[in-house]
């Protein structure tokens, strides 16, 4: 026999699937990059600065809580980067940077670190951050600016660079100066709700609208989401059931209440639904692990979205629907524990 080798003793199984947390998260970042790129192309410098600020704020907050707690550096798992990117993508393009930094801080601290970090949170951190600034700065977060204006790569929106804690200047006069006629400031959902104007589906798909930085092009989001789904990095059942819930509720409402009947196609491709369904509802930390639970969760989010959009005070409901879905997840999971193999008497 040869020299005695160094023997390692490990427990079964001795094989492991190639995926690990870092790889999954890194791929989500990859999938978000095209969306971020499109947002920058569409809205220009302001969005670029916003993406950087918010992500940085998330990373710094994460690091701060690392230091307060275990001392273990968790930036390497990329999850805080995802939180930052997604959060920035859900904010209005001209959102003041300092408010973006506040959002990032709230996302990681209130949404994640408080509960023990990765995997321990109950609600989606990015959305906690957004809900926080939505409640804190309701004016800034409902201020929309036009897309594709000339000079977007050479100038910031005036509100972007507002000084910390100070009120951002109004963008109205700036928008008028830009003299864009193709895209007004209002989002498709607001146009629909308050003025009864329906945006073209093609425009919704290709992103020829305004809205939050990263939500405009439904098609691009779909493609990036499908990339992840095919690589099994996200659970395709969630976006599918969310979209199913939206379609189903829209159709049901058109039977019950034809006057307000939402158009299912419009509901699906407008607002943040695509981004929410593919990237935020699908965050596995806040969604059920049981198959039946996933179905209920998705349908709940989809139907809440439509109900809030149609009957609520807000034009958009995806964020709140997902947060409520997250909150309901523990209950959903409790009532949908899987039936184990051989439990039902088979006759």
């Amino acid at each position: 026999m040869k020299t005695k080798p160094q023997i390692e003793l490990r427990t079964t199984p001795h094989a492991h699937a190639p995926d690990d947390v870092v790889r999954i998260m890194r791929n989500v970042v990859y999938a978000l990059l095209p969306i971020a790129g499109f947002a920058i192309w569409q809205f220009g410098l302001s969005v670029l600065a916003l993406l950087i600020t918010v992500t940085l704020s998330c990373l710094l907050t994460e690091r701060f809580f690392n230091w307060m707690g275990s001392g273990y550096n968790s930036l390497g798992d990329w999850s805080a980067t995802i939180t930052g990117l997604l959060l920035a993508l859900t904010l209005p393009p001209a959102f003041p940077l300092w408010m973006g930094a506040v959002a990032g801080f709230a996302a990681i601290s209130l949404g994640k670190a408080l509960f023990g970090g990765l995997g321990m949170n109950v609600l989606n951190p990015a959305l906690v951050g957004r809900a926080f600034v939505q409640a804190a700065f309701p004016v800034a977060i409902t201020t929309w600016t036009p897309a594709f204006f000339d000079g977007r790569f050479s100038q910031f929106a005036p509100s972007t660079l507002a000084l910390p804690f100070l009120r951002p200047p109004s963008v109205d006069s700036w928008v008028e100066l830009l003299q864009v006629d193709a895209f007004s400031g209002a989002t498709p959902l607001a146009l629909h709700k308050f003025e009864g104007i329906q945006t073209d589906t093609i425009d919704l798909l290709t992103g020829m609208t305004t809205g939050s930085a990263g939500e405009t092009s439904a098609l691009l989001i779909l493609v990036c989401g499908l990339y992840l789904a095919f690589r099994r990095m996200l659970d395709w059942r969630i976006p599918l059931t969310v979209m199913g819930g939206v379609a189903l509720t829209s159709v049901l409402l058109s039977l019950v209440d034809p006057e307000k009947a939402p158009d299912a196609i419009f509901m699906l491709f407008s607002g943040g639904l695509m981004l929410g369904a593919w990237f935020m509802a699908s965050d596995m930390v806040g969604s059920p692990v049981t198959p039946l639970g996933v179905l209920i969760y998705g349908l709940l989010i989809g139907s809440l979205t439509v109900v809030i959009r149609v009957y609520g005070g807000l034009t958009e409901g995806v964020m709140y629907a997902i947060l409520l879905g997250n909150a309901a997840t523990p209950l959903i999971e409790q009532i949908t524990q899987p039936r184990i193999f051989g439990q039902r008497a088979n006759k």
Partner: protein
Amino acid sequence: MQQPAAPAGPMVRTLVGVAMLSGLLVVLTFHFTKPYIDENQRRAIEAALFQVVPGAVTRRDFLVTEKGVVPATEKKQPGDTLFYAGYDDKGKLLGIAANARAQGYANLIHLLYGYDPVCQCIRGIKVLKLAETPGLGDKIITDPAFVANFEALDVTLAEDGKTLANEIVTVKHGSKQNQWEIDAISGATISSKAVGKALNESAKALLPMLVPNIEAIETRSEEQVTGDRLKVKG
């Protein structure tokens, strides 16, 4: 509060004693504070009234009941609508004020609005209570452009006198065309719409009853100038 096995005497004595003591204290307080509270309330109402009926210095209260418009000397019955009439120092009717409310963004918005029988229009509104988002929904108070909607908001009655000639509607910011339209605040469309809805519903219910009876309140009778302090519920 276990019942049994206690001498009933002291128990009853204590309860009755405490109840009497408490009643006494409450009644005393009530009587002692009542004038102040009434005064506070009168001031509050009049401040609001004189704001929405510019120029008014005195007031009288009326009820719209099944029988028509009567002075609010009796107790208000369910279904009655209370309104206030404002007069100038010569006793000439300047306008009337009534309550309106509708669901806003966060909760009900309560308003007092002033109606001018001469121009058949609303001359001003005062928000009594709101829980809208500060900075957004509370623009219905602070935004001068919005407040300007109520300098002369047309509420002419239709020919049959049973409803408004034109319903009050809130339109998107910057698209106001007619005197009966309210130009919404951009960014607070919901609160703006709630104001429109509240006015519309109240005016639709009140004015057809009020306008035919306007002579009844046209002049004030002397004895009622000061005596009338009706309690308004919070």
